[in-house]
């Protein structure tokens, strides 16, 4: 190779020694290319995760709140044994699951229509409609829900103007469930749509040839093939709900403490970083299990 390269007539301004070295050694090229992002990933991302894990085994001085590097398992013991934290973890997981199921139920027919029924033009419009809310600030969208759901909000006003009793769902679990489902819906629709679009029309025709009606074909052909897309979307909706703490603060009522809120208040208010770190490992562990399950269902091929 090197001989061939040397034998070629030289062009003016030809390859510099570095260029030719990189050309001759493809592995070097790839290493150099990957070094910055990999280095970033290892240093910034993995190192901070490792630090998080290490900190979880320390403690603080309860009066001055300074970290004391005394190795112990007390933080984890409290999380496992104190009913308060079991309640908070259970509540967070239940909400994440409820939001995920809700979003899947809404996203499936929507994505089906988008991918398989709508015209090209409608499809573009629907796409824009799904993505449009993501351009607006998260806080603004949550606050707009407060304006809808609170006592003198649009919802109660509308109900009362048609003679129905007010639905006082502001500052409740229901409010949080609605807002979470709304906020994360696009993250479910897009992967479901992508999976649905990949189902070949010929399979649907084959199903029809074999006598299946449309509903049967959707159930037996589209659903299994689109499932990895739904599971991929559920990774987003589940993990995003699991880690969120802003919606519970703004929309939640009494007893709306989530894992994220306890982590936040331990870092920002109580200055107990070790305990926050220990608690933060809980969603990491839950997501690890979730991802293993999702991989089995083929979610990563659908991303």
């Amino acid at each position, binding site marked *: 190779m090197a001989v061939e390269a040397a034998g070629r007539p030289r062009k003016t301004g030809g390859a510099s020694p570095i260029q030719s070295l990189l050309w001759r050694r493809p592995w070097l090229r790839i290493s150099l290319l990957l070094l910055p992002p990999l280095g970033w990933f290892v240093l910034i991302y993995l190192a901070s995760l490792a630090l998080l894990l290490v900190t979880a085994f320390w403690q603080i001085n309860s*009066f001055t709140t300074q970290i004391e590097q005394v190795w112990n398992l007390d933080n984890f013991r409290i999380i496992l044994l104190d009913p308060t934290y079991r309640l908070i973890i259970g509540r967070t997981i239940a909400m994440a699951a409820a939001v995920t199921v809700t979003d899947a139920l809404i996203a499936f027919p929507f994505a089906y229509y988008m991918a398989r029924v709508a015209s090209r033009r409608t499809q573009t419009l629907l796409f824009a409609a799904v993505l449009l809310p993501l351009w607006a600030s998260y*806080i603004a969208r949550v606050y707009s829900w407060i304006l809808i759901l609170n006592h*003198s909000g649009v919802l109660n006003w509308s109900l009362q103007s048609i003679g129905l009793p007010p639905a006082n769902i502001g*500052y409740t679990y229901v409010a949080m469930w609605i807002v979470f489902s709304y906020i994360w819906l696009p993250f479910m629709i897009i992967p479901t749509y992508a999976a649905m679009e990949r189902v070949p029309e010929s399979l649907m025709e084959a199903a029809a040839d074999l006598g299946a009606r449309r509903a049967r074909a959707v159930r037996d052909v589209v659903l299994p093939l689109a499932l990895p897309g739904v599971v991929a979307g559920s990774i987003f909706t589940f993990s995003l709900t699991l880690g969120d703490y802003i919606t519970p*603060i703004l929309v939640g009522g*009494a007893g709306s403490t989530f894992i994220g809120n306890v982590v936040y208040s*331990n870092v920002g*208010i*109580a200055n107990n970083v070790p305990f926050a770190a220990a608690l933060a490992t809980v969603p990491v562990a839950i997501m690890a299990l979730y991802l293993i399950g999702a991989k089995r269902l083929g979610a990563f091929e659908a991303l």
Partner: protein
Amino acid sequence: MVTAEAGSGARFRLATAAAAAVIAVTACGSTGNNGGSTAAPPPTANMKPQTTIGPGEGQLNLIAWEGYTDTSWVKPFTAATGCKVNAKFGGSSDEMVTLMAGGGGGQWDMVSASGDADLRLIYGGDVRPMNPDLIPDFGDFQTFFKTPPYNTINGVHYGISLQWGPNVLLYNTKKFPIKPTSWNVLYDQANKGLITVPDNPIQIADAALYLMSTQPNLGIKDPYELTQKQFDAAVALLRQQRPLVKKYWALAGDEIQLFQNGDVQVGAAWPYQTNTLRAGKNGRDFADTIPAEGATGWGDTWMLATNAPHPNCAYMWTKWVSTPLVQAEQALFFGETPVNVKACAQMEKLQAGSCAQYHADAPGSYFDTIKFWKTPIATCADGSRNCIPYSQWQTAWTSITS
């Protein structure tokens, strides 16, 4: 902006004797192992405060309560001194302590700390002594606020008192046409779903204050010094209250919104919320009161960070907020009481009758009726170590509210 959810923060003390022994040896100062012994002097006790105010540094970074850095007195300050004020709101005393501890590298200059944060800041070494001789108005302060126990230790001033005020009962006058006379409205089943209280562990003291008059046999003398039995009674009361609460509010603005939208009708508040609500839409629907059981209250202090990068601007600021006019302006804006007795006349000029309304002319005995916030520590007034320290207040608060 996203606000801190104050108070649900839990801090945990480890119970193991081994760990405690290690801490006792390694703890800085000798703040002890369960948050309370304050036998050793604060870490910054020997730092000599400056004796003159040099030229301003052009910047001033403050951690302040919402409403403490209103443009009406910040703008003239910047115009006069060239110190540009950058303020961050602290949602709770706990958050302020955390911000100051995290800013040890010199990010912050001053904090408008309340009495329940002061001892933690002082013994944490986050604030340093200040020189009251550089504050000309200091001589005109109410005697109590020259050396209140929460900011003055062994005669060393760790900050200059600013304002004080009571925690009031805020209510909707449509729901309560007759002014409530007891805090029991916050514990009453009849008001289920209409109540809001601050998301702050120091709320336990409010329950204790209520128990002082409703269950005198508990023998509570000071709502911040509770034995295990008294503490348990207060926590039990708050657990009963929990299903009645619509929302634990984190920032004053949250509570104002809750009242304005009719989501809640009664709650524990600061006079600031009342003033804001009364100035807004349907202002006459809102009023506040100090019920018969008395009230907890706060005494706030501007404290100087140990590594303050702009100490001269900090002193200029303290001088400025201690002057009678600014004291009066802030008092009326926030609904609190100035520590400078000369502010009374200024208040009357700005709003007739306000001096008496806010007790700015109160005699010394009045201060005994307000139970000022202070950090609960393990050492009780009688010197025994049976009292419940603040870290346990936080833990209990998390389990009550979640």
